[in-house]
């Protein structure tokens, strides 16, 4: 997860390496305000886990706007262009095909397929890009071993601060999460 960090490695009493500290919240409002506090405390390797996307959470967490739409646009337009070139080369150059009395390479007739290919590859980029930037699929994750964490997919809201964060300190981080209203604060093993 955290390459080349020089942080201290924390272990639990049983000697397992600590991955993170988690805290539970009851409502979207609670976790929203807690996220603002964690953001203001200067943490960077942390996350909020919620059953649905909470409106405005990006701002509460200080997450930068994703470049994904730009990537989709660039790849989509490129593939549309390549699709046009494909048609032009196949119909006009490699095997010139005269139909309907039209010239071999008529750009007007190539518009529908150019458009469809642009859409097709934009859609692939959208979903593959979303997974890529999110580093998914990742079927193993320390959090998923935690029983209480599984309730995030139902009605719980959790904040998870990674032990790899430069500001992480078991006592101070716990105090911060407690102060923000978190309950069931616990360590997650790697």
């Amino acid at each position, binding site marked *: 997860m955290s390459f080349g960090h020089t942080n201290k490695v924390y272990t639990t009493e049983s000697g397992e390496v600590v991955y993170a500290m988690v805290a539970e919240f*009851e*409502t*979207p*409002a609670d*976790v*929203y*305000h807690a*996220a603002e506090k964690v953001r203001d405390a200067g943490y960077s390797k942390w*996350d*909020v*886990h*919620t*059953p*649905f*996307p*909470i*409106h405005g*959470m*990006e701002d*509460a967490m200080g*997450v930068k706007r*994703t470049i*994904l*739409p730009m990537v*989709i646009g660039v790849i*989509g337009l490129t593939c549309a262009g390549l699709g046009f070139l494909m048609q032009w080369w196949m*119909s006009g150059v490699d*095997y010139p*095909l005269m*139909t*309907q009395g039209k010239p071999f390479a*008529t750009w007007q*007739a*190539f518009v*529908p*397929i150019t*458009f*469809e290919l642009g*859409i*097709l590859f*934009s*859609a692939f980029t*959208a*979903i593959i*890009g*979303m997974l890529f930037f*999110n580093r*998914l699929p*990742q*079927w193993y*994750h320390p*959090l*998923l071993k935690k*029983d209480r964490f599984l*309730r*995030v*997919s*139902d*009605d719980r809201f959790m904040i998870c601060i990674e032990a790899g964060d430069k500001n992480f300190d078991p006592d101070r981080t716990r105090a911060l999460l407690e102060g923000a*209203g978190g309950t069931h604060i616990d360590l997650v093993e790697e």
Partner: protein
Amino acid sequence: MSSIHPDQVTAQQLAGLARLPDRGAPAPGTGDGSLIDDPSVRSPLVLNQRTFKEVTDIVCGYTENKPGKWWLPTLMVTGSIAGLGGLAILYLVITGIGTWGLNNQVDWAWDITNFVFWIGIGHAGTLISAILCLLKQKWRTAVNRSAEAMTIFAVICAATFPGIHIGRQWMAWFLPPIPNANNIWPNFKSPLLWDVFAISTYGTVSALFWFMGMIPDLATLRDRADMRLRASKTGPLIAPFIPIRVDAVRAYVYGFLALGWRFSSRHWHRYEAAYLVLAGISTPLVLSVHSIVSFDFATSILPGWHTTIFPPYFVAGAIFGGFAMVLLLLIPARELFPNMKDFITLKHMENMAKIILVTGSMVGFAYTMEFFIAWYSGNEYEAHVFKFNRAIPTWMSERGAPYWWAYWAMIFCNVLSPQVFWMKKFRTSPMAIFAVSFLVTIGMWFERFVIIVTSLHRAFLPGEWGMFYPTLVDITTFIASCGVFLTLFLIFLKFLPVFAIAELKAVMPQASPHHHDGHGHDGHGHDGHGHSGEHHAKGGHH
């Protein structure tokens, strides 16, 4: 963990045997979910003031518990009908296209009628998932998952027909531009090839959109199965004496499909961005697909087909027929599945009835305009098609149209029957909506039949005039496509999350991070989601 080790009552509620408690309306006059005349009051999207937990339990319960007694017999019937289609297609492939009623004059008939019929039905799903998303229509969250599923199943049915009508079906791989021994490429100037690209793009993008929307809900199903596995050493097995628990299979399969989703807000951020882009590109896509389907006809010179009105007319008709199919599926479903009426409310019914009224009237306008232009253009071939191939019955003129009944069935079903939705009484009656949707579905099939067959059967030279009569293979293949569609939908209802759980939760009033702020700090931290059942009525509606 009450949902993991439920008591008797909860277990029955989760299994869909008992209804969850009615909590009534959060504000007077908003209870039944129908539209409220006062525009400043929003009717709730989820009725009975459900908590997040109840939403999860209800929707996951549909897949986790035994379905109603109707499910398996229905599936066996539709599955058998679908199987007949396999036999019909096999017979077609080993014998030839002559097994259909096609002839020299009418060389497109039920095959292309069925193709356009099914592809049109799919359009409602994309309209709901993409266009209504861009328009911020929050009510779509209750119907988008099932409508998108319907889209994909309709595209599967649709794509079969061009695939099998090409004659030598084993040459179907010549459709995409794949290098071949003949060293030739497909004709990119042909609308039929545009259609290949449009339909395959449409099917692929719809499936991607559907799958991406399902990732969080699959993760919910995974986590619930996982929780039960961890909580107890015993549980139902997949078969007697085979020591594999059903929940283990669920955790594995749903877990695989959920791709390790862990509800991270950083992930949600990119997920929502990708979702919005997909909605944005699906909107022009869905408009282009039926436009391109209409080019199959409009770019030819056949009277009755060669009209510029076709693309918008086809798109409106597709949305019209698609919504009718959505309602045909969802009205029985909300009766059969417990608590589904909390999500698919009368408001949803009424909204969709209004869309049917609008698009039905657009289609009626297009029918009228076609007729007007046939007369106004002064083109005698065009006028002949509309007068003597379609409208005038045989008993009124000896040149009359042998298919007049198909034309007037179309007018009755598509233009007249939806007009009852001007009256609120009919728009809010599921029975009336179901009846109209049924008529519209029939009418939209006849529309394509009328466009295709009545234009072809009497073209320019009277010496070539002929009739089309369907054969048993024609009829079996069409009915079987309905069987395939229903079978896939029944399987979907049982095994996948029927509602977009995460999206439903996100439009509930307690989902807003400012839900409590408007009320001071009185209820902070104890009542937003919990088990007390106390909720603020109309908090955070922005």
